[in-house]
């Protein structure tokens, strides 16, 4: 699978992010993030304190600079995530560049209009070499289309009127032929427009979990504000005086600035990761939801098995030489161009090196006989077909189907395969077993999904016996056999009644209701407009196994959030040990004993904690953008691991970091 280049820091992106970090200092923008807004207010207060307080201007200035840096780092993280998103949508934007369109008027006359002037319902004509001006549905013609602008895939695809491959996307180019397209999107509301807006964060809304976390973080900020504000009057009891820069420094160190600064970036990065996997989420919520999915509905064909059935074994009848069966079947399949026929020829050719029999007359498959084969020049008739058809052929020829062959055919059917009986004139030579071939590594992928806690349901048009056999081989939890769209919808509704979140992938118009009903519907880009409208994500690569990646991206997004929140809160312990003794050491000298890190001086201690607090933001930007690695090991093991790394690590790391920074800071004159 082709991936967008994932270099973390492109110089051009860094420059843009740097510029944006200053623009984002506007209070209206900052107010969206209560934690960092508090930090900015603190920075303003300290800056005022430099001028107003007669005391130590140097100290106040340094604290104020570090506070502003903290805010800027936070903005930088968000701006960088947005810049990365923009880079990914760059090619999309070129595609969105103004186009001219040939609109077909009601009287069939053609008029040239601006692409922006098109409204849903308009009919446009697009010929080879032209760019499709808007999202729509082909109503006439067939064309090959270059969709590389949105999918990155250079091979052209064929789109035609009617059926499940009729939708076209604005910005893609027609390579051959001419089509009429019925416009379905409002100007500015096209698929591309929505995709660009989402990735670039212009329309970013907080997802439900992000909102809940923001509330918790705001609550913590409020609590620490209370702790800090109460400290001043408490200090008065001891005749101690705390100045504004110190109190603000304490507050900013305590409030969860790390996660507050990175929260937005984590969310945007999640969408970016989805886009890198060629998945376009219609909202950030869809990505978050993906992590919660309990049940996935997967189509059998193309997802679990390799396309069509293939020959997997030959079963000669008793007394028939294997070589004879292979020879016959090879000859009988000569003119058979169906995938099954080809697979028989390939398998038989592999096993036998018998020279091809002299070419005879090909008897193609017909609905009446339901047999296909070859009539050799000497009059020998070779046939292969389903058991009942073969039996009729034999009877008409005066032969009979041996009991052993019938048994062998039945046992193939019981295994979920399709038996083809091979006949040479009046003799049944044996059975060819056609069966579904599982995709390589599919069982391992399913095991991975199951460890993630997902239920996998296979959807197939096969009969229940065949379906059960494949389901068992692939290791899925359940299957829907002889599935109709109504049945799929009913299954989804049943799962949802039990409280499960269902994800499914689909492409056809008849999938639309199920896609809409599913909590997470992923439509293939090659699918119909109706399917794409009903889904909450579109897979540009139209890869049916993509659901697995969707779920992992969702989980990764949530985990990154949780891990960094825990890290951020755990950091506070060390900061307390640095700052609290420093605050009161003048009034209560005995508190020096709490300075377990043996920091240079009270001021150096406060400043070091503050600098650590600021530096940890850019240090964690790569983690926020890449995401915490997800391992499908079950919730308990994941929790244990993340607690160890981000909880315990979060307690220990700042002790080391603050001490190191202090060693440098205490070298400065005045600290």
């Amino acid at each position: 699978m082709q991936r967008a280049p994932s270099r973390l820091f492109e110089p051009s992106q860094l420059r843009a992010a740097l510029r944006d970090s200053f623009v984002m200092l506007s209070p209206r923008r900052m107010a969206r993030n209560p934690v960092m807004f508090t930090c900015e207010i603190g920075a303003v207060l300290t800056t005022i304190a430099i001028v107003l307080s007669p005391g130590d201007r140097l100290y106040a200035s340094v604290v104020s600079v570090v506070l502003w840096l903290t805010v800027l780092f936070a903005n930088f993280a968000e701006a960088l995530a947005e810049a990365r998103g923009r880079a990914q949508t760059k090619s999309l934007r070129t595609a969105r560049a103004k186009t001219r369109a040939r609109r077909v008027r009601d009287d069939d006359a053609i008029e040239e209009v601006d692409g922006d002037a098109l409204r849903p319902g308009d009919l446009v004509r697009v010929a080879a070499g032209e760019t499709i001006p808007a999202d729509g549905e082909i109503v006439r013609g067939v064309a090959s289309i270059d969709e590389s602008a949105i999918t990155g895939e250079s091979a052209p695809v064929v789109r035609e009127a009617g059926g499940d491959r009729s939708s076209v996307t604005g910005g893609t180019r027609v390579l051959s032929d001419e089509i009429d397209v019925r416009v379905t999107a409002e100007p500015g509301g096209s698929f591309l427009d929505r995709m660009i807006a989402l990735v670039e964060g212009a329309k970013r809304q907080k997802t439900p979990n992000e909102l809940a976390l923001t509330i918790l973080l705001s609550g913590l900020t409020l609590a620490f504000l209370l702790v800090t504000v109460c400290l001043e009057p408490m200090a008065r009891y001891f005749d101690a005086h705390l100045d504004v820069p110190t109190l603000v420094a304490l507050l900013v160190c305590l409030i969860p600035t790390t996660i507050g600064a990175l929260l937005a970036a984590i969310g945007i990065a999640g969408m970016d990761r989805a886009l890198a996997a060629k998945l376009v989420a219609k909202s950030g919520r869809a990505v978050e939801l993906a992590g919660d999915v309990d049940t996935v509905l997967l189509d059998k064909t193309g997802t679990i098995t390799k396309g069509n059935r293939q020959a997997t074994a030959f079963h000669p009848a008793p007394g028939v030489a294997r070589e004879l069966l292979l020879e016959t079947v090879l000859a009988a399949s000569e003119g058979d161009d169906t995938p099954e026929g080809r697979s028989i020829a390939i398998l038989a050719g592999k096993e036998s090196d018998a020279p091809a029999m002299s070419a005879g007359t090909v008897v193609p498959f017909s609905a009446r006989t339901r047999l296909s084969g070859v009539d050799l020049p000497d009059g020998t008739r070779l046939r292969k077909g389903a058991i009942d058809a073969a039996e009729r052929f034999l009877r008409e020829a005066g032969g009979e189907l041996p009991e052993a062959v019938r048994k062998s055919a039945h046992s193939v059917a019981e295994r979920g395969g399709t038996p083809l009986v091979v006949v040479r004139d009046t003799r049944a030579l044996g059975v060819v077993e056609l069966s579904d071939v599982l995709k390589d590594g599919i069982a391992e992928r399913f095991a991975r999904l199951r460890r993630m806690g997902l239920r996998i349901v296979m959807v197939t048009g096969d009969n229940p016996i065949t379906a059960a056999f494949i389901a068992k081989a692939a290791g899925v939890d359940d299957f829907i056999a002889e599935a109709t769209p109504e049945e799929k919808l009913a299954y989804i509704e049943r799962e949802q009644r039990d409280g499960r979140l269902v994800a499914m992938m689909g492409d056809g118009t008849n999938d639309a209701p199920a896609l809409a009903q599913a909590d997470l519907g992923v439509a293939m880009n090659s699918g119909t407009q109706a399917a794409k409208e009903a889904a909450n994500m579109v897979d540009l690569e139209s890869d049916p196994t993509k659901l697995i990646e969707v779920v992992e991206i969702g989980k990764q997004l949530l985990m990154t959030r949780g891990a960094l929140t825990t890290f951020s809160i755990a950091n506070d312990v060390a900061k307390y040990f640095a700052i609290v003794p420093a605050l009161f050491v003048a009034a209560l000298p005995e508190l020096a004993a709490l300075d377990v890190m043996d920091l240079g001086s009270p001021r150096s201690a406060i400043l070091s904690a503050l600098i650590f607090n600021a530096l940890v933001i850019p240090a964690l930007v790569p983690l926020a953008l890449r995401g915490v690695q997800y391992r499908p090991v079950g919730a308990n093991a994941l929790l244990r691991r993340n607690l160890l790394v981000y909880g315990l690590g979060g307690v220990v790391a700042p002790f080391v970091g603050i001490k190191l920074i202090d060693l440098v800071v205490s070298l400065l004159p005045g600290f």
Partner: protein
Amino acid sequence: MTDTLLVFALLALTAALSIPVAVLLGRALDTTGDRLDAVLDRALGPRRFQDLRGYLVALFLFNATLFAVAWLVFAFQGSLPLNPDAIGGMPPDLAFHTASSFTTNTNLQHYSGEVALSYLSQILGVGWLQFTSAASGIACLAALARGLRGERHDGRLTLGDFNRDVARVVVFVLLPLSLVVALLLIVGGTPMTLEGAAVAETLEGSVQRIARGPVAAIVAIKQLGTNGGGYFGPNSTHPFENPSLFTAFVEASAILLIPMACVWLFGRMTRRPGDARVIFAAMTALFLLFSIPATQIELAPNPAVAGLDVAAGPNLEGKELRFGDAVGSFWAVATTSTSNGSVAAMHDSLQPLTGLIALGGMFLSCIYGGVGVGMINMFLYVILAVFLAGTMVGRTPEYLGRKVEAREMTLATLALLLPPLLILGGTAVFAATDLGASTTSNPGPHGFSQILYEMSSAAANNGSGFEGLGDDTVAWNLVTGLWMMLGRYLPIVLPLAIAWNLGGKRLVPETSGTLRTNTFVFGAFLVGSVLLLGALLFLPAAVLGPVAEHLRLG
């Protein structure tokens, strides 16, 4: 050493006893249609199926009535019957404080029991409220559990019937257990009489009036219901309230019994016994983390006598020697962890770090905690831990199969903000002004600790005190009176609203990707979250008070 082993054996015994008590609580709160129900049908009318609003309204109506009656009794006890010693009425502010204190299950006393209360006040103001306030707390826990399990009647969610819950808890659990404990106390030598004070002529010929009364009955419910309000001023250090090591063990066990049983009740009613085990283990881990150092610190000699020519031994100041070396400090942890507030040693005289541990129990208020409400408080921490741990395993968080979302987090965050607001805010104002600074009996960190302790005791509905603080002032009475109410009702209303919300949500089945809340890892994370959050919010105040004092004693 033997004393230490004995008290921890007592802890184990109480934990074992809490399991059958939980069965009793379950019978009281989770069965219908028994004979008591038939009696209550006649007395209270048919069973109601209250929604969140209805349940809370019933709670407030009931508690407001209790408060009003108590205030009237305290203020006018001088002219009411059952007053053989002719004790006068309380001033209005003290009556307000005292009524608030007993209605909220706090039992913070700004008066001295035996000389300030008539028998009617002791029975109607104190004893009656000790039953009903405890039952109110347990009823609310039952409502919480019903909310979480999504209890429905006729298809509509319900939290139960508050008045019936209270009545059933009193009849099924509190009365029988109190009877057993009171009998044990009487056997141990505690007085039980309605006669006036005993009058004795001393050897010097002067006349001594020895206060007494229905002590055993009141002490029994005082301990069982995490009330803690003493019959006598010195509480359970008084030889009539707590005559011997035997009664000390009975009472210490009674302090922990129902708070422990409430955890099992939560597990029974939510049908999650595994979760209850993990919560119980987490609480016990916290309790041991507090009580083991506390007993050891108090066994070390007082640093003030270090180097002096006296025998080195345990810190004996403020201890009752008839209970041995370990009971006083163990009791101090038990009584502050559970919001009981009765004392068997003077907390003011504890070593500073033991004082800090006692403060810690009140800051957290969830180590077993008050009857009913302790488990409700722990539920808030569980929600918080679930939210963090849930996202860390890559799912939007869920608890007991229901999604924890923005609304629940708003309520939980508000509830978690309340203790620092009351404790730190109150302490800041009182420490910085003469309201508090002039009432302390010590300068420096210890005086600060006295203020901090009083605020914490009120906010956590504990009721113990760092005696020595001159707390019977109008300011102290009004502020702590109000703090007790806020500290009582908001931490009931907010969690019940969370449970109500959760109960209405669709139940999500568990998969291997679901965060399990009945595992060791989650228990450890819960303990960590409780400690971390408590430390972060209260560390600066703790450093200024007990820690500074400890370092100063050096």
